[in-house]
């Protein structure tokens, strides 16, 4: 059972890793014209029929196409991760259906898994003579897997999925809109990012933020982005403020953490956290939660898909609140971590010779 879940998580992660550049590319191309407009006090290009503002409006609309592809790419590459190339077709088609029929990311997940598993089943169970082998990936697998998706999502699950998705979206929208619930959300998601820095809990929060982009709900993604960038920045700050508390190796890691924080990679904090996880993980969680909640309470709003990293503030309405959130997060770690732990005297867990083999899980493919 546990293995099955790990496998599913892997498929989902593969899908997301293909989806990310699409979201980032699309949302940045939305953000850049919007920002230029905002500098001149223009909030919408719709009214312009010619000239520079018209062209910027055109560019922005291309960016929205990218954002609109999220379900399609997610479903397609989940299917690809499970059933290889022949599964892509059904995944794309199902993902596109998820968008048009308002089934959202849930629909995309169902489409991806259904296409992937059907394609995989076909490849493993259907045996044809060698003569006809080439028609398998080209005709049989795409036909069967797309048909399964069409029956499953076009008929059987269409109404329930649409209902679940619209209700879920309405509920999260309400939470994101009301200040109190958004702050609670920020506390929880910020702390989750700080727990295992790139492990399952961190990625669960990160995934929630990312898949909701497809629903045009941007607040959760903004919340996680604060903690993601703020935590590595915290260790960069710590190594700058308290040089004598760090070994040369970690001072180097601290320098690269400026970069990690700038582009938004929580994993930059791992080398530090490994020194004393028991003390440092709570500090990371506290900092993540505090940073995210500060951003929300100061009135930052995500009106377009937010981009991670320090420079992500350009995509946020009240971007200064985002930066203050980062600062709060970074300072909590920058000051508390070196006070709580002397990074000089302990060797990172697992680096010495007594590496323990027992809890390593290895499986054959």
């Amino acid at each position, binding site marked *: 059972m546990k293995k099955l879940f790990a496998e599913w998580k892997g498929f989902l992660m593969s899908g997301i890793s293909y989806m990310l550049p699409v979201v980032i590319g699309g949302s940045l191309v939305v953000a850049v014209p919007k920002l230029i407009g905002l500098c001149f006090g223009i909030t919408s290009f719709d009214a312009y029929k010619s000239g520079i503002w018209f062209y910027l409006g055109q560019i922005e609309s291309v960016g929205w196409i990218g954002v609109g592809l999220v379900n399609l790419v997610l479903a397609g590459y989940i299917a690809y991760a499970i059933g290889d190339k022949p599964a892509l077709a059904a995944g794309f088609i199902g993902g596109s259906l998820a968008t048009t029929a308002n089934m959202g990311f849930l629909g995309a997940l169902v489409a991806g898994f259904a296409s992937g598993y059907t394609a995989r089943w076909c490849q493993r169970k259907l045996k044809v003579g060698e003569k006809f082998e080439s028609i398998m990936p080209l005709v049989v697998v795409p036909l069967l897997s797309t048909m399964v998706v069409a029956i499953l999502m076009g008929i059987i699950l269409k109404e329930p999925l649409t209902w679940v998705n619209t209700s879920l979206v309405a509920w999260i929208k309400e939470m994101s809109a009301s200040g109190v619930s958004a702050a609670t959300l920020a506390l929880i998601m910020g702390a989750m990012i700080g727990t295992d820095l*790139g492990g399952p809990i961190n990625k669960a929060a990160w995934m929630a933020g990312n898949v909701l982009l497809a629903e045009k709900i941007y607040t959760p993604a903004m919340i996680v982005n604060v903690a993601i960038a703020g935590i590595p920045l915290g260790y960069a700050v710590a190594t700058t403020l308290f040089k004598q508390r760090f070994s040369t190796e970690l001072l180097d890691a601290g320098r690269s953490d400026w970069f990690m924080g700038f582009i938004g990679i929580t994993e930059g904090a791992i080398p530090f956290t490994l020194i004393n996880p028991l003390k440092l993980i709570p500090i990371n969680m506290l900092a993540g939660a505090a940073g995210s909640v500060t951003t929300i309470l100061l009135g930052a709003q995500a009106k377009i898909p937010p981009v991670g990293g320090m420079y992500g503030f350009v995509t946020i309405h009240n971007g200064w609140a985002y930066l203050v959130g980062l600062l709060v997060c970074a300072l909590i770690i920058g000051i508390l971590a070196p006070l709580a732990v002397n990074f000089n005297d302990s060797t990172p867990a697992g680096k010495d010779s007594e590496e323990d083999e027992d809890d*390593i899980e290895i499986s054959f493919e």
Partner: protein
Amino acid sequence: MDFVAITSCPAGLAHTPMAAKALEKAAAELGLTAKVEQQGEMGLKNEITVAEAQAAQFLLIGSDQKIEKMDRFEGIPKLRVNINSCIQKPKAVIDKASKVVAARSSK
């Protein structure tokens, strides 16, 4: 070639190279020859060739994601391990992998 390995993580920016370096370093310290490929957001880095793959004792995959170009490794044992284990205790991972491969082939 004692073994080949592939590391890959969702963002392909942090864990992938960290795990790859950890494995390379550990292999060198254990006196083993190894080649570690990174499958990150930038595509395939330090790509393992078919000849290298076929000469290796086994393939160690440090990832729970989809791995590209698996057809290169036809016929050699393939092992999967969590990428975090590769970063935290690369030596133990390599040791254990070698052991389970040896145990299986002696059966």
